[in-house]
C-alpha cells in the first residue's frame, strides 16, 4: 500500500473525500439508474410472459431484444454502480478489452460446436 500516495488525485482516489454536494449529485444519478434497471426488468418479464417461445421470427427477435436489454443493464451496473466509467482510460480498457475478446471467441466457438452437434444429433439419432 506504499504506492497509494502516488495515485492520481481523481474523484475516487483513496485520499479524496467527497463533499456533501458531490454526494447529492452522485446519489441523484444512482437513483435514476435504479429506476432504469427496474423498468428494464419489468419490461423483460412482461415480454417473457406475453410472447410464446415458439421459434417463429417474432420470438427470435424478442430473444435478441432480451440480449440487448441485458447488455444495457450490464453496462449500467459496470459503468455507474461499479463506476468503471469514472476510472482512468487505461484501467477501463485493461478490464473490458481482454474480457470482450475472450468471451466473443468463446461464444463463437460454442455456437459453432453447438450447431454441428445439433446436426449430428438430428442426422444419426
Amino acid at each position: 500500500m506504499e504506492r497509494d500516495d502516488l495515485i492520481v488525485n481523481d474523484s475516487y482516489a483513496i485520499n479524496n473525500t467527497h463533499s456533501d454536494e458531490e454526494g447529492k449529485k452522485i446519489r441523484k444519478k444512482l437513483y435514476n439508474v435504479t429506476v432504469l434497471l427496474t423498468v428494464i426488468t419489468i419490461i423483460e418479464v412482461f415480454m417473457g410472459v406475453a410472447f410464446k417461445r415458439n421459434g417463429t421470427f417474432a420470438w427470435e427477435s424478442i430473444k435478441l431484444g432480451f440480449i440487448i436489454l441485458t447488455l444495457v443493464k450490464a453496462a449500467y451496473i459496470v459503468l455507474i454502480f461499479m463506476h468503471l466509467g469514472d476510472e482512468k482510460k487505461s484501467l477501463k480498457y485493461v478490464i473490458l478489452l481482454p474480457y470482450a475478446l475472450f468471451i466473443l471467441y468463446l461464444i463463437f466457438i460454442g455456437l459453432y460446436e453447438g450447431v454441428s452437434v445439433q446436426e449430428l444429433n438430428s442426422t444419426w439419432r
Partner: protein
Amino acid sequence: MAGHTQNLTKDELWGGNASPFGVSYGKMMMWYFLVSDALTFGGLLTAYGVIRHGSSDPWPVGEQVFEALPALHGSYPLMYVALMTFILIISSVTMVLAVEAGHRRDKAGVIKWLGYTIIGGFFFLGSQAWEWSHFIHGSGGGFQLNKSLTVNGEMENGEKITMTLNAGSWVHMESDFGHAYEHALEGGHDAAPAAEHGHDAHAEHGASHEAEAAHVDAASMHPEALILNKYVLEHKNDKDIRKVKVTGEDCKKLWDAKANETFVFGANMHKNEYAVQQQYANFFFFVTGFHGFHVFSGVVINIIVWLMALGGEFDRRGHYETIEKIGLYWHFVDLVWVFVFTFFYLV
C-alpha cells in the same frame, strides 16, 4: 499527500514510480479477480448454450417451469424470479449508497446502507432456497409411455387437438394428483418418507391429506386429467402446442400405458420431470448454485466489513476503500444474476 501524478510525464507514470491505472493495488486486484470470475460464469453460460443448442429434444420453457409462488396455488409465470432479480438489484443499490457514504467518510451512512445490503442478501438466499426446494420437489411429476398412442386433448384456450405420441413420450400429472400419487407410492412400502415429505404449499389440499392419512394403495388411484407438453412448447401448423389437458377415456388410455419404472417427481442429480435431458437440471443446479454460493460468500464478507465499520476501523485507516472493494464484488454478483436471469428464465 494526495496524488501528484497528474504532473508526471508518461515515462515516469509507466516507469514504476506511480500507479498508471490510478487505483490502489487492492482495488486493481479486485477488478482482475472479477474478470477471471466473469470468465468462469461466461464459460458456464456458454456451455449451457452449447448443450441447449445441440440438443435435439425440445428444451423446457422457463415460463412453464418457473410459475409458482410460495403459499399460492395457480400459475404466475416468471413472477418469482422477477422478484428475486428485483431484490438483488435493490441490494446492489443500497451497496452503492454505502460506497457513496464511504467517500464522504460518513460512518453512520455506511453502517445503515451496508446493513440493508446484508438484509437484501439474506432475502435473496432465502428466495433461492425456496426456488431450489420447489424445483427439487416438482409440481406433479410425470412418466413415460410404454407404447405409442393417439389421444384427444384440450388446449388452454379450449381448442381441441389430436396428439400422436410415441413410446417413451412424457406425460405429466396435475400437481394435486401427482403429489398424492407420490405419497401413495412411498407409503406403500415405507410410511416414513411420506411423513418427511411435508410441504406446506400443498398440505392444504385434500387429495394429499387423504393419501397420507389412509395410505391409499397406489394401484387403485386414477388421475382425472393428464397433461401433455407441460414444460415444453411445440410449434406445429402455426399453432403453439403447450399444456394440453387430456381427460376421460383418453386419460385412462394414457394411464394404462404408463411405464411404471419411469415415474419421476421433481428433480435430482439423475433424473428430472422437466426435461428428457438431465443436463437441464444439472445446469440449473450448478449455475444457480454457483451463483448462490457467490451471494453467500458476499453476505459473509459484507457482515465482516459491517462489523469492522461498526468498530470504527475505517476511521482509524482514514479511508473507506474496503467498502468500495466489497461493493465491486457485490455488484458483480448482481451482474452475473442479470445474465443468469436472461439465459435461464427468459430466453
